């Protein structure tokens, strides 16, 4: 569980999340769009994926569905990154097969342990 693929279109969010993930001992691969994220997931086979739910090219749900439909990426754990107070989105993500979610704004003190808890739940 060392390599994280982060699919996120906002540069600030990518930089801050990468700093936190690296501080937690993860190697980080970044993708700016849903399509690039999917391609990198297939090619790089990361240990888990952090998926922003609001991407510029496609909805996070669509990316998740593509990942889940492909045998090469089906088993990679996906953690959704959602906005606070959008309960409906979280439920749709969990229903579509993501392993858990973390909320924006991410809490730098807790985010690594949040990720570990989610990843431990489903080995």
């Amino acid at each position, binding site marked *: 569980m060392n390599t994280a693929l982060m699919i996120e279109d*906002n540069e*600030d*969010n990518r930089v*801050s*999340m990468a*700093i*936190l993930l690296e*501080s937690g001992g993860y190697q980080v691969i970044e993708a700016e769009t849903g399509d690039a994220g999917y391609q990198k997931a297939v090619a790089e086979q990361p240990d888990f994926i952090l998926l922003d*739910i*609001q991407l510029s090219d496609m*909805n996070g749900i669509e990316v998740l569905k593509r990942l889940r439909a492909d045998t090469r990426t089906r088993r990679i754990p996906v953690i959704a990154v959602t*906005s*606070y*107070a*959008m*309960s*409906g*989105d979280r*439920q*749709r993500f969990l229903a579509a097969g993501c392993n858990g979610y973390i909320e*924006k*704004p*991410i*809490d*730098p*003190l807790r985010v690594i342990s949040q990720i570990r808890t989610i990843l431990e739940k489903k080995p």
Partner: protein
Amino acid sequence: MDPKGEILVVDDTPESLKLLVDLLMDEGYRVRPTMDPKLALESALSNPPELILLDVRMPGMDGFELCQRLKQATCTEQVPIIFVSALQELHERVRGFEAGGVDFITKPIQREEVLARVSAQLELSRMRQSLEKRSQELAAANQKLQDLDKLKSMFIASVSHELRTPLNAIISFSGILLREILGGLNERQRDSLERIDRAGKHLFSLITDVIDISKIEAGRSDVYPETFALQELVDEALNTIHPQAETKGLTVTVSAVTWPVLHTDRRRLLQCLVNLLGNAVKFTEKGGVTVLVSDTGEAVAVAVRDTGIGIAEGDRSKLFKAFERLDSHLRVKAGGTGLGLYLTRKLVTDFLHGEISVMSSPGEGSTFCLTVPKVIESTTSFSEGDLP
């Protein structure tokens, strides 16, 4: 509208017809005389008059029947009809009113009576029409205002949503620096960063309140029920006040006989409890905060009791209004938006289908009590993608 109005006069007797027509024309009314009830019906339907004077006894179709037919047609249903008749019997008059007539003139006619009744009915009819027009205009204006209000709320919700993205960056990076991931901080750097961090989080919670309120006011109070243990939720809410309660030396206690499992909007309920607990700690200097849970079968009541400053009776009605802060010295101290309790009440009523009440004695403390159904249904889905 014609100042004197056009009157359709229907009478099969030439003498009585002439009498009425002359009388009305002398007075300046425009008159359409007809002796045949069927022709009268056609005439009225093709060009509705302002008033109809109608004889009762006529061959072919009597006045009552003609009246009923006119009342059934959309174009003439509002035209007032006065019966002109020698009939004195009460039941005949009742039949006339039942058929839709508004008044009776007895034959032989009296000039003054005819003119008085005609002008009274014309005036009534015009007043009714203008009232109707006015109420339609008001309804349209009201609808327009409601539409604009919704638009405003959606606008605020989407603008506020955009505000959160840069704010996320401020909060994340100040947090990263505070964790000293990128290097150590001296005392003054830490203090400065903590101020940025606190202000960012405060701004974030204000924006979240505004988004929630705008969505509710735009009629988008969608509910996402989840099944969860109330005890865990209460613990989670209490975690948010523990640091502050500790700093102020306040006790925090929980009292429950049983802990129910709920199926309701978990986040909204949590938000309400966090707001109430936050207020309780904010306005209490000595003593403590107690959470009391009671299961009433269908519903559960969660009360937050404090031993704080309390709320004067006259202020209690203001509590749940937007932007109300009771006293200026509290405002400085409280530092909130003035939206907290307004939002809490909205959340309780609109999302959780429950109610909120307050009891208080100034100087002794306050108790806010939420009562919500244990199980609620979900509503249609709403996602960020739906924002304009």
